């Protein structure tokens, strides 16, 4: 059976309109739910940099109770009119450090809700294959790490991907400090695994087979935490 050209063109046109219509309708209908998922995911990451989240915990409620979020600029001044959820860290990363909008998530103390116990800062960088990002929670001295949460897009499974999948790797950062007295030195992940760095406040054990991912993590921490320095100083860091 050989159809006329008109039939074929009409057939294709109608098919396109029908398929397009169904997809547009589905996308509109599901959009809200999808965005809620993304927002919840971010809250979860911010919280889990500070505390262990239990299975089935109400993340939105905990976040609303504990976290106060705002945006600062490189000078450490609050930027009015910009919500942290509207700041795309991936886009800010491409700007020079001085022009970045820097979200800050303050984690309030259990006993006194006006006191800030921890600050959670987003970090963003480049690993071996693709972007890496995460959140770093600092204690109120703006130097000691309370916890970190790293994520990646395409690091090698079982090697570099351990920055996300291996909780023990993230725990290595706990208690380390970014500042030596008042000078910023950052925290460096060393080459080689299985060495003991407990005596050094600025070094953590490396990942065997993932030296380049570790390098990416080091650059990311150095670059991003340093750009918050003016904010730290304005808030009582000597």
């Amino acid at each position: 059976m050989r159809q006329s050209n008109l039939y074929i063109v009409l057939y294709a046109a109608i098919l396109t309109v029908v398929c397009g219509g169904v997809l547009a309708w589905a996308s509109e209908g599901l959009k809200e739910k999808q965005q809620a998922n993304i927002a919840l995911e971010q809250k979860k990451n911010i919280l889990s940099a500070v505390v262990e989240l239990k299975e089935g915990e109400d993340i939105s409620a905990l976040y609303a109770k504990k976290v106060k979020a705002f945006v600062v600029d490189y000078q450490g001044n609050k930027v009015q009119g910009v919500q942290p959820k509207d700041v795309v860290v991936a886009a800010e990363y491409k700007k020079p450090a001085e022009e970045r909008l820097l979200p800050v998530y303050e984690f309030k103390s259990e006993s006194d809700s006006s006191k800030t116990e921890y600050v959670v800062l987003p970090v963003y960088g480049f690993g071996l294959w693709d972007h890496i990002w995460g959140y770093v929670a600092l204690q109120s001295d703006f130097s000691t790490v309370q916890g970190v949460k790293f994520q990646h897009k395409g690091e090698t499974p079982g090697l570099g991907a351990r920055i996300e999948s291996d909780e023990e790797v993230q725990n290595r950062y706990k208690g380390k400090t970014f500042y030596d007295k008042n000078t910023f030195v950052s925290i460096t992940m060393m080459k080689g695994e299985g060495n003991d760095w407990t005596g050094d406040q600025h070094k953590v054990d490396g990942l065997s087979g993932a030296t380049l991912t570790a390098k990416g993590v080091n650059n990311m921490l150095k670059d991003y935490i340093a750009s918050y320095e003016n904010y730290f100083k304005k808030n009582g860091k000597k």
Partner: protein
Amino acid sequence: MSTETVAVEVKKAEPLFSKKNKKLITNPLDIDNPITVQVLGVCSALAVTTQMLPALYMSASLLVVTAASNAIISMMRNTIPSRIRIIVQLAVVSLWVTLVSELLKAYAYDISKTLSVFVGLIITNCIVMGRLEAFAMGNKPGPSFMDGVGNGLGYGLILMIIAFFRELLGSGAIFGFKVFEAMGLHYKSNGLMLLPAGACILLGIVIWVQRSINGYRESH
């Protein structure tokens, strides 16, 4: 094509679960398995099988896509202009794949992140297009739907077998449950199983075992 369809339409309507139709579901599980016998859809079988839960969602997604596309294409088969039939098939497959992917993003967000591009890549999965060309274009919607379900199950079965061994040996767990720890044993994970190479070896073994059981030989 048209002569065939006329012949089918004259016949008395047969029940959906007739003996012949049941074969459409059971054959792809064994002697006509899309992965191990026809060696289609191998790419995703290697990519999403490090853990069982994502593999299960992937299987379910493919099952929905093959079954639904098969049924729809079969309903449209007498109207589809033969000169653009591949692109029509592709449009219907894409429609379902996008719907499934959007649904996963809305209702199983963590899983959709793990599966990432592989749900979208179902569009290019040869199993789907293969079944449309080979079956749905020449059969009625009912049997086409069954054929889609059967092939989806056949794909899923192999995916789950590979995922079972990869997760067990690679992470010492089944569906995220640490079996070796629960038994009080210390298990050093086998990193090879987490890499695509490990999956390739496993898939080879699965094909070998299956063919030695059912006696399938490639015809030369």
